[in-house]
């Protein structure tokens, strides 16, 4: 390599430059005092912390520019703690930089590779000890050992089986049945079409049968969004149009992408937007995906009214709601 030959020469470590505190006792004394002051500031910070903890009221709020209304006790505790920690650090660093020896030291490195003799010895030892255990010859032991260790590896998998039940048909079904009333969430009141004005949105759930309670799991798959448009706004085929009632259309609120609640409705454009990943669905075209990563429309729930004039589901969802899964067939 040619550049090795005519390299510049390494001038070596530059000469050590003394600091003022090294030669001037006055400067050293000043540095010592500065360190002491920093330690004292830290002590003051701790005193502030203890004072705030014991003597300040926990419900006093003070207004500070930028920060706004701030809990005075939390602020004093925090600032006191911050000061006490910070100044200890500053004192130690200042001490090190001004008063501790600052001559650079050179230490030699050693190569990590072992000596050839040691390596050879190591290999010989392994061979000899392994040979004396008969690892090379006793294939029966070797094979059965492999089998037993391999099988043992399965044990944790089996033991973790009871973490949860089998999913069975869970992902394919919801609690919406033919004739289930739509009730408000919150409130659990059945609703009539005239409760919703044109342009209004409401979150509904299936009415509870007596003796049951609503869990978060139910909400996570049953939540439905009702939106009322003018009937002429729809751009639906005959079947989907028959699933609406007087301009009211119902969609699963659980995003078909990753299951977030599709909660943002823009009245002007009649778009539903999922705040997690911005999948956007066009309400007038049966929640067709018009933007974002979602690959499927939100499932539409067929609705109508019952004999008492309350909104009910015509039939269950015709497809699984929520994000995709392996067993999903469409």
């Amino acid at each position, binding site marked *: 390599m040619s550049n090795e030959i005519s390299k510049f020469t390494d001038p070596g470590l530059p000469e050590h430059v003394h600091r003022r505190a090294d030669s001037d006792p006055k400067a050293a004394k000043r540095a010592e005092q500065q360190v002491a002051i920093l330690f004292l500031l830290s002590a003051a910070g701790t005193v502030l912390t203890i004072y705030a903890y014991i003597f300040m009221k926990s419900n006093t709020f003070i207004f500070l520019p930028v920060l706004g209304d701030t809990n005075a006790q939390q602020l004093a505790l925090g600032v006191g703690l911050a000061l006490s920690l910070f100044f200890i650090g500053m004192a130690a660093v200042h001490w090190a930089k001004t008063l501790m020896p600052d001559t650079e*030291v050179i230490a030699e490195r050693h190569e990590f590779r072992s000596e050839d003799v040691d390596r050879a010895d190591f290999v010989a030892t392994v061979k000899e000890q392994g040979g004396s255990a008969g690892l090379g010859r006793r294939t029966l032991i070797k094979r059965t050992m492999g089998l037993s260790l391999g099988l043992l590896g399965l044990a944790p998998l089996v033991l973790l089986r009871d973490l949860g039940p089998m999913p069975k048909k869970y992902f394919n079904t919801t609690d919406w049945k033919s004739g289930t009333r739509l009730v408000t969430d919150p409130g659990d009141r059945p609703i009539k079409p005239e409760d919703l004005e044109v342009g209004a949105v409401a979150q509904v759930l299936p009415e509870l049968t007596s003796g049951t309670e609503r869990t978060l799991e139910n909400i996570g798959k049953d939540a439905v969004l009702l939106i009322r448009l003018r009937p002429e706004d729809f751009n639906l085929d005959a079947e989907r149009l028959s699933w609406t009632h007087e301009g009211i259309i119902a969609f699963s609120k659980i995003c078909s992408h990753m299951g977030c609640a599709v909660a943002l409705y823009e009245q002007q454009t009649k778009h539903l937007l999922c705040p997690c990943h911005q999948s956007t669905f066009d309400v007038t075209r049966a929640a067709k995906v018009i933007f974002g990563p979602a690959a499927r429309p939100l499932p539409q729930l067929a609705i109508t009214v019952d004999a008492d004039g309350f909104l009910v589901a015509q039939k269950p969802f015709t497809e699984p709601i929520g994000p995709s*899964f392996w067993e999903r067939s469409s």
Partner: protein
Amino acid sequence: MSVKDRAVGGLANYVDERTGAAKWLKKNLTKVFPDHWSFMLGEIALYSFIILLLTGTFLTFWFDPSQREVIYNGNYAPLSQVHMSAAYASTLRISFEVRGGLLMRQIHHWAALIFMAAIVVHLLRVFFTGAFRKPREFNWLIGVGLLTLGIVEGFLGYSLPDDLLSGTGIRIAEAILQAIPVVGSYLAFFAFGGPFPGTAFIPRIYTVHVLLLPGIFLGLITIHLMLVWYQKHTQYPGPGRTEKNVVGYPLMPVYMAKAGGFFFIVFGVTAFLGAVASINPIWLYGPYTPGQISAGSQPDWYMGWLDGLVRMSPPLETHAFGHTISWNILIPGLILPGILFTGMALYPFIESWMTGDKREHHLLDRPRNAPNRTALGVMSLTFMIISLINGGNDVIATHFHLTINQIMWFTRFGLFLLPPIAFVVTKRICLSLQRADRELVLHGRETGRLLMLPHGEFVEVHEPISPEKAWTLTQHLQPEALTVAPDDLNGVRNPAGLKGKIRARFSMAHAEQIAAPTAKEKNEIEGGHH
């Protein structure tokens, strides 16, 4: 001997007779550490970890990791009588009733953000200076492991309060599990103990967050530091610094004081942030319910790139033979991150293969002197930053009056177009900087002083640089491209074959550089016209 000396001597004797520690300590207390600001980045990560352990332990004294439903009747009036999980209620209690509780929560969260940021910046420093090269490949692998676990640990941590924002994040994690082919729905049911959300996940992730992962962290960090200790720290090139030595300050007392002091400074700054800068105000979000959501749902920053990739994914799903594969989740959520992190972990081995360099390296590279590596790093960073930008597309849209469409399409194209551009530009900049170094060494520093020559020509006076500087700029070894033996005359293919050719091509890219000036060249110039 004074009383104090005798007491100290007695104690030291007592310990040494039982451990033989004196010999080890004698050797290691004078251990030399080189000094550079960029070596403090890893320290910040370490100290943040200690802060996390301390504040985290404090929080466990009051946090109730349970999804049992309770009715809130604490100090925070807006949520009075609201049904919520015990986890959420106890987080409210820590925030409003435990003195210093909110402070500790906020310090804990800030420390987590700083921990991750410090790991990333430390990783970049190690990458761009080539500190991962032999013999430090193991420590690079441990570092990548710590980064990966840190992302998981952070995500689990901010999921614990069971508020509306964190529950939404867990919902997305469940959807990723559910999307895994064949076993997805089973994995989701096992992880959540049944249907989402269930009442199992908070206690489970609590154990993982406070016991399992911190334990693994402790083990990995210990090995990481022991290797640094044993292999001795790398150092930047400079006069007197060689591959065979390490130049710096001894551990006792200077480094102990500086590093110990720096711990307190990091803790102090984090505590200050916790005191004045509100973070994750969970009382504003309300308890989690799957039917609700808040606009502008954002993960913490170190998850943002992942969310950004998911957001920009095209709506691709395959439906066939009664099964569904969600490419729109699998590619951005699992496959791409898997490739990125595997590539990052293997990079030291890939580079060593490409360059054929099997030597030990203890002197760091100046990034410009490894143009190809630096360009690869900036390329990857560009990819991550574009993903991160899209992860905040809703916030960016409202702040800069853009539409989400514009940002999404910019990042969709940008993800493929900008990284290669960043590669080329970075490589050119590195080569230009090499040229500037060469110019500086051979012709000296531009002084800005103009001189009029007798015949009227103006020239700028150049001042030669110091021998120290000249050495620093020229000491590096310049790699040479590997050559492939051509097919022999009888048409027998070179055994290295296609693999050898690819390797030679990569090695050529790595060896592209401006020849470093030599002493001979400088002598010629000086002996000549000037």
